[in-house]
């Protein structure tokens, strides 16, 4: 297993994509840090929160859906490198776990580098250096975001192992599409009678993690601009729904890979 992880990490850190995506994340946090220089009451708390949360926003909105399919799907598609690994005795589940772990390393790397650079650049620019960096509520929310991000990633991984690359990218984007989430979120306004659809909409937004996750990001953005009352976010389901989605996606991926025949 150790060799497999080393092999995957060597592949990962030789990939230009890792550095391109990290650069995109970093550019965003740096720009946001620069914006803080023009905000009169910018604080250290705003800097840290925007740097950390920004990762999740950009991840879901633009980048995340591409990462898992790009790194995992080609190996499971025709002509992939998998025969050279499985034929030397590594089990399909071990191979999958090594890929999963390397994908997490990828995300942690991009998160840590982009957040750290954003904070370092922003420190001289913020006006108010006093006060709490992050209160307990923000920390709690950040942890929940991590869990939700993890569940979303697992869903994308499931598509990546089950589909060829193009289909994997398509389903991955579709599953975490923020515009689709917004439509679901605002379905009550299009309901002819205003009764059934609000319930369905709320159910989906609470229990389907990628959409719940988008709701959290939107609410966080509103909070940042002092309009927290516009979207009320109920966080009570987020952890449990994330755990359920992670279990289903992860279990589904294991089920798929352990039965996968490499015929081409």
């Amino acid at each position, binding site marked *: 297993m150790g060799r*497999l992880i080393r092999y995957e990490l060597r592949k990962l850190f030789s990939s230009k994509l890792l550095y391109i995506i990290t650069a995109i994340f970093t550019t965003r946090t740096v720009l946001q840090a620069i914006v803080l220089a023009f905000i009169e009451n910018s604080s250290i708390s705003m800097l840290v929160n925007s740097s950390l949360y920004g990762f999740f926003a950009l991840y879901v909105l633009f980048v995340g859906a591409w990462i898992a399919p790009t790194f995992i799907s080609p190996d499971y598609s025709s002509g992939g490198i998998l025969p050279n690994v499985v034929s030397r*005795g590594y089990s399909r589940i071990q191979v999958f776990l090594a890929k999963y772990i390397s994908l997490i390393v990828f995300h942690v790397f991009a998160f840590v580098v982009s957040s750290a650079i954003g904070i370092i650049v922003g420190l001289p620019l913020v006006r108010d250096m006093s006060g709490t960096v992050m209160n307990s509520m923000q920390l709690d929310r950040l942890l929940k975001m991590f869990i939700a991000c993890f569940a979303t990633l697992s869903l994308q991984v499931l598509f990546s192992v089950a589909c060829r690359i193009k289909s994997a990218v398509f389903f991955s984007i579709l599953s975490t599409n923020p515009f689709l989430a917004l439509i679901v979120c605002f379905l009550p306004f299009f309901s002819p009678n205003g009764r059934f659809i609000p319930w369905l909409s709320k159910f989906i937004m609470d229990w389907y993690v990628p959409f719940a996750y988008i709701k959290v990001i939107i609410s966080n953005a509103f909070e940042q601009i002092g309009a927290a009352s516009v979207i009320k976010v109920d966080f009570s389901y987020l952890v449990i729904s994330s755990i359920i989605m992670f279990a289903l996606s992860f279990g589904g991926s294991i089920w798929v890979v352990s039965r996968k*025949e490499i015929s081409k």
Partner: protein
Amino acid sequence: MEAVLRTEHLTKTFGNKAAVNDVSMTIEKGDISGFIGKNGAGKTTLMRLVLNLIFPTSGTIELFGESKLTKANLSRTGSLIEAPTLFLNCSARENLKRFAILYGADNNDIENVLKEVDLTGTGNKKAGKFSFGMKQRLGIAIALLGNPDFIILDEPVNGLDPEGMKEIRDLILRLNREKGTTFLISSHLIDELSKVVTKYGIIRDGVLVEEISAENLKKKCTHTLKITVDNVDGAKALLSAAYGNDCVSVDGGTVVISDHNDESAEINKKLFESGFSVSGIETAATDIESYFIEMMGGEL
């Protein structure tokens, strides 16, 4: 002799079609076993089964004496199945470095296999820009990495020029001779295969129709002279006395003599000087290719 690979009633079906049907075979240590069959006969499927890439519908596979395919026995097996699977955006050396992590090989091994397949001079050139033959060589290098005891090669000389084919052939023979490496090779190039294998397996429609040693095959594929002569029995007696009973026979109105095709002029002279009237001499040969084509019931 220790069996490296043994299959018992191995079957693999895709839908209603049996790609491999009830195959029982044994490859012993030190064998260079060649698989021959038409396209779609089941050669590659059988190799994939042995390498755990696909799962058998029924039957058993025993590798290095173990009845299950495990890390322990598969790690002693190198392979190249169909087209080589490579990191196309990496150099040959980087490809090998990545696989070396998995196969437990070191830098010396990498340099050795690069030398073996004559890819040391490729530098930073990406594998994606290699010719088909170079990719094939790199695929073979990956199969050799980690010094496996058993190597499975599916069409290994595909895309190679005659010189490249000879190099690979020499490499196979050398590894077999010096390290005792066992090989299972499939190829359409029967002539090429016949220069290295010690044993053949003929596959038709998923069924292993015959396993035959190279030695026995050679005996079956004799070259003969068919001599039309006025006194068949007299000529048979004369030639038997000269060349031995085993290689002379009568077939209808002709005398058949095996393995002396290059002596046709001398035989003719001998018969003429003994008063026989020879009205025709024709050479006939059952070569290896004809034999296989016959066994497979059609063209390759």
